[in-house]
């Protein structure tokens, strides 16, 4: 085992590693400056459990109604060798497919390692009959994140036709009169872009389409509708953000050797280490909190607590309007006439004027 892998395993402790998925990668890509998230994800640490144990339970969860509905819709589209999906691709996207083979790569017996499964995905995807369309369900992909391979178990179908691959994503949010919730579409597009990148890593740059296919229920029914989504812009964004994530080795270099997020439990299922100790361990790795984390990262409340008193906690627009000054305290001191350092003279003058006007009017 290479030393980095050993360090990461130590960080994770005895917990089962959690694999990356497109959701975690896109969350990481929205905040590439967060070393804490990058490191914990690379180690496969269970952030949700850690957050709950340290007293900062994640503010989001999934309703079983949403899960049931999502699974039912997906199962329906994939039923009978993805018959519904095939007719969608034929009729709505006018793809010239006479027949298509459906192959579920998620069906594996035994405890194969990610490397083995990935190798099989690669073998199957690169040796298909080009004349016939093939749909590969649950391929195991891999992507370089922070200089290391992260395995992805995406819930997607890689649809291969005439030697080119399309990413097909099945989502259960509705498209009503041709329009869907923009936030959900944006999230789906970013996730698809992550898959396109990973597939390109596997098959080569020109073997994967930058137009992905989004399958959603139409209007208020459960009838599927397919929409082509051009993800070229998202590809650029994800690539740029991934390149900004620090190298995992560098992040490890800044941490003490004995750092671990281990939650080993005693015979009653209660972690042996006190919560405060675990929290202190987490705080050893610097984070980069932004309010956007509140909807994407399980540790957000812990980091928000830490960011108390910073302008970043008030949101990027506020921080920018305040000239990028880091602390609320500094902002208010400047507004009350404290002598500014040379680089904030202009902001300070504006703040004094704003504070003066506010005071005069209220």
């Amino acid at each position: 085992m290479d030393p980095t892998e050993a360090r990461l395993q130590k960080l994770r402790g005895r917990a089962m590693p959690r694999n990356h998925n497109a959701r975690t990668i896109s969350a990481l890509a929205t905040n590439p400056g967060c070393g804490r998230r990058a490191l914990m994800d690379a180690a496969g640490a269970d952030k949700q459990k850690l957050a709950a144990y340290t007293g900062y339970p994640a503010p989001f969860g999934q309703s079983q109604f949403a899960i049931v509905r999502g699974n039912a819709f997906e199962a329906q589209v994939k039923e009978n060798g993805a018959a519904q999906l095939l007719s969608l691709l034929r009729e709505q996207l006018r793809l010239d497919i006479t027949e298509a083979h459906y192959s579920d790569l998620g069906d594996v017996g035994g405890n194969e390692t990610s490397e083995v499964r990935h190798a099989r995905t690669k073998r199957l995807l690169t040796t298909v009959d080009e004349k016939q369309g093939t749909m590969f369900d649950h391929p195991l992909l891999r992507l370089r994140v922070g200089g290391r391979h992260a395995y992805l178990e995406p819930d997607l179908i890689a649809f291969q036709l005439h030697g080119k691959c399309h990413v097909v994503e099945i989502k259960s949010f509705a498209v009503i009169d041709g329009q869907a919730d923009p936030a959900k579409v944006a999230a789906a597009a970013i996730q698809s872009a992550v898959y396109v990148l990973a597939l390109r890593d596997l098959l080569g740059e020109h073997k994967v389409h930058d137009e992905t296919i989004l399958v959603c229920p139409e209007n208020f029914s459960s009838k599927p509708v397919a929409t082509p989504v051009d993800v070229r812009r998202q590809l650029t964004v994800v690539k740029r953000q991934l390149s900004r994530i620090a190298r995992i080795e560098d992040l490890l270099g800044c941490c003490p050797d004995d750092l671990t997020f281990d939650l080993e439990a005693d015979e009653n299922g209660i972690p042996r280490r006190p919560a405060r100790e675990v929290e202190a361990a987490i705080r050893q790795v610097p984070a980069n909190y932004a309010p956007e984390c509140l909807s994407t990262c399980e540790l957000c409340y812990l980091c928000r607590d830490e960011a108390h008193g910073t302008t970043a906690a008030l949101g990027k627009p506020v921080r920018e309007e305040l000239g990028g000054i880091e602390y609320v305290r500094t902002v208010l001191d400047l507004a009350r006439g404290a002598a500014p350092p040379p680089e904030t003279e202009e902001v300070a003058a504006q703040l004094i004027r704003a504070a003066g006007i506010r005071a005069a009017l209220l």
Partner: protein
Amino acid sequence: MTLLTALARALAAETGRAQPIRTVRHVHLCDRPLVLIPLQLAGEACAPLAAMVGDDRDKPRMLTVYEPRDRTQRFDFAADLADVVLGYIDSYTTADPPSEGPYPDAPQLLVPNDGGVSFTRLLSRSTRFRRTEGEYAVRHTVPLLGRWLNFYSERCEAPASALLLSMTAVLADHWATGQSATEDASLASLLGWIDPPPGMTGAAAARAAEDPVRCPPAGPATDPSFDNEVLAVRIAAIRTARASGDGAALHRAQLAMEAALRTQLEPTWELMWRAVGLLRVLPPGGHVQDRWQADRRAFTGHVRWLREGGAPAPRRDGAVPAARKLAILERDAQRLAVQRAFDDPLVLAEYRLTGEAFAGVVVDAQPDRLDTSGKRAKLRPRITVATGDEVVAEPGVKLVSSTRPKQNAVVVAVTDDGPDTRVVLELEGGMGHSLVPPQGSVPAVGETVTYTTLRDDFQPVPTFPEIADTPWTHGGPPSAYVPKDEDATEEWS
């Protein structure tokens, strides 16, 4: 985000209490608004689960869908909601629409957040095309409710309209909290900052409000743990009771589900009325009534349209109505910005910081000054304003004062005077026709004035072709929209 609001957020973070960012209320608030809090089943596009609705704080009406996936029960919910909403609207239209002008007042809908607005729009979409006879018939009030909800959600897109308001949006527009906009989307958290319970800071109240057990979300999405731990059990009990044919058990199970949902709705109901109370204390801005009049006109127009048997709004606008709507929205957004600045010195202050306005004291005035350079003498008073604000306006630029919007002030000279700047202005208009200005029409020495480049001029909406003349570039004239069978029988599953 403006510097003043950012500063107010910093102050709120320091003091632990929300800070006012407006001196007046910029939206109209009815004497008797209708509060509507919808809940929907997670994972579905628009599956109503429950609602609390009413115009009397002490008498909320609660509606529950015991089997949210059952089509018939959804339409029963829509019909029950229609009874309340249409009953409320009807109380404003007891007389026929006036032959000229709008009704004296209009009904106003308040929902907790933007999600509530979206729910209103989706519920309208899934009900307004339904038929009241034949196969898949629904109660006659269902499509009518859909058409009203469509009217309200469409008006909500107009920035100046107050017919349907999202409470978090209105509150966040009037107060700055010491948290981010993301967190402000929670009604309970926002109100925690603005109006914390005695002995608690706003910051602490907002944090406490993040506990979904203590403060359930304000909908339409429910708390996932509530779904998993409570609601799922209640729905399962109803299914079991129904399957067993035990009427008494079914009734008990239904009561239990209703009680569970009530715990999710009641806290928000209280928050909504508390918010109404907080807003009512603020004096309304000067232009609020003008904008409400436009709302009343729109409302009256819709009553007329319905009474004359007009068709429901199509699923999507055609090219001409869409272009016209967009032009009106843009014009209104601009006018709204100017009106808000004129109504509220704190809003105007934002323009002072960017150099688009300056405030100062009149230090010299020549109210009787005549311009005799032409054939006839013209009344052109001059005033000199001393201001500490930054002045970017150059000679020749036309300004107006928020208190005398009909009077133009042309910049004649701008000179530095120590820490102050002196601006000489030549006034024109708003002084009658004689050569002597009426009392008060020219700012007097010692008066505090604000001049700005903002103008509340009437901008006519550009003319668009008739629908029948839609150019080929935009698909040519569309065929008239007639609700089709498929609209009426569309699945709602």
